[in-house]
């Protein structure tokens, strides 16, 4: 990170999910012929899903081979929804057990251990209030492919209204 100082919440493995999802789409768009035949069925999903307004905050669990939760979610969500950042995210992809991590952080914080930030209050549908921009919905998924499936299904459903 010579010469470039990233905000603290962006250090660590939280970028894994974003890189994995972005890379999957980049490969699908630029080198579709190199994708093995078994995964060709995924091509339309990988190519069509719009990631322009999707935020991702998920690490990787090597033992389980799936996304793992990240710490300091509050700072990350605040970062995603900084005023002036356009386009603002419409959804944030997280690991499936991100809410457990948030609960752990909450308990640790109440016990006064460490300097862990208090997770944001969250409603039952995994919506986080963000910087006066309404609610940011979180999409808990196990891996990038599941994320693409969920995002594509939502995208096709919303497209049905305008086609």
């Amino acid at each position, binding site marked *: 990170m010579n010469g470039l100082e990233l905000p603290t919440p962006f250090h660590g493995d939280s970028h894994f999910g974003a890189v994995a999802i972005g890379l999957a789409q980049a490969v699908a768009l630029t080198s579709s012929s190199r994708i093995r035949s078994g995964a060709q069925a995924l091509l*339309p*999903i990988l*190519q*069509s*899903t*719009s990631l*322009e*307004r*999707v935020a991702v905050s998920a690490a990787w669990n090597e033992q389980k081979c799936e996304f793992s939760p990240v710490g300091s979610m509050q700072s990350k969500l605040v970062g995603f929804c900084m005023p002036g950042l356009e*386009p*603002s*995210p*419409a*959804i944030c992809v997280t690991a499936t057990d991100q809410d457990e991590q948030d609960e752990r952080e909450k308990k640790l914080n109440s016990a006064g251990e460490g300097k862990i930030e208090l997770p944001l209050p969250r409603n039952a*549908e995994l919506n986080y209030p963000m910087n006066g921009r309404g609610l940011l*919905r979180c*999409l808990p998924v196990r891996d990038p492919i599941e994320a693409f499936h969920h*995002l*594509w*299904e*939502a*995208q*096709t*459903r*919303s*497209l*049905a*209204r*305008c*086609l």
Partner: protein
Amino acid sequence: VRALSGNLTAFLNVALFLLSASKAAWLFIGLATLGAWWFLSDYYFALWPWWMDRFAFIACSFAIFFAVTEAVLWIGIRRPARRCAPDFDSLGGSNRELKLTPVNWCATLDVIACQGGRLWAAYWHWYCARIKHLGFDHEPICANRLRTSWWFHPSAIPQWMTLGCLPAFWALLLLAPLHTNVMEHIADIAGPKPQEIFNVLCLTELQDGAATESRGDIHLRAVSEPLTREGSSSVYARTDKCVRVPFGDFVVSSTRFPRVYRSLVVSCGQGCGLDSRDTDHAKKTMEMPVIPGQDLSFMWIQTTSDPLKMTIALARQDGSTLYKAAIEP
């Protein structure tokens, strides 16, 4: 303007889908058009202006077509689309700006097709087929241009031609029966009753002592008297008061002739005139269209003391006589 053009393009797409891919829609619209034509086109004799007689069924058919298309658009397409809306919008409201290649649009439309009933699926599969015809090497298409992207492609010609079938059907119904015997045959099958004149009424005014109406110093009394006939013969004669006056109206009652052309041809002998009470302006023959279900009246005047020697005939459009009656032959 944007919302209006959006609704218009969606309407046209649904209309093209219905006419090119739905036999049920064609059957319904076709039968409704035939029904409207049958009941609204009396072929010249309705009480409304001539253009209503010709074009009322077209307006009715178009209204039905419009209503069916709107119903399919709003009930069959837009309502399910609202129902299947996701609980989160990953596009953040920028759906219309999304650009995809035709192959990816086809995959998207196929997935959309799986999320509703039969009509919904049929529409989206048809839509997908239209996009597929653009070819997979086509440049990416923006969502807000997808509806119209295939309209001007050669593959769209059959779809537009099906839209032209409806006006062609109207033209066929409008023109064909006027100059053929089709309507005569249909009318014969629909109404096998004999077509005839069954009553002639004499309406006149008689100078009489007991006045019911005053016109200066002349007292007149209205007379309404049926002409007599022997049995079911076609010879009618004036009797009683009607014989005593030299002018009046004859009211002819005949069988109803819906949807076919019938006219009443009246001709007069030496001693009478038609259409006027003035002997100078009276005619010897006249032809009037028969309005179905309505009696027809015409004026007559007796110019000499001879019998009227009048004939009244029901005629077809080609001039052939269906039924002929005589008044004081």
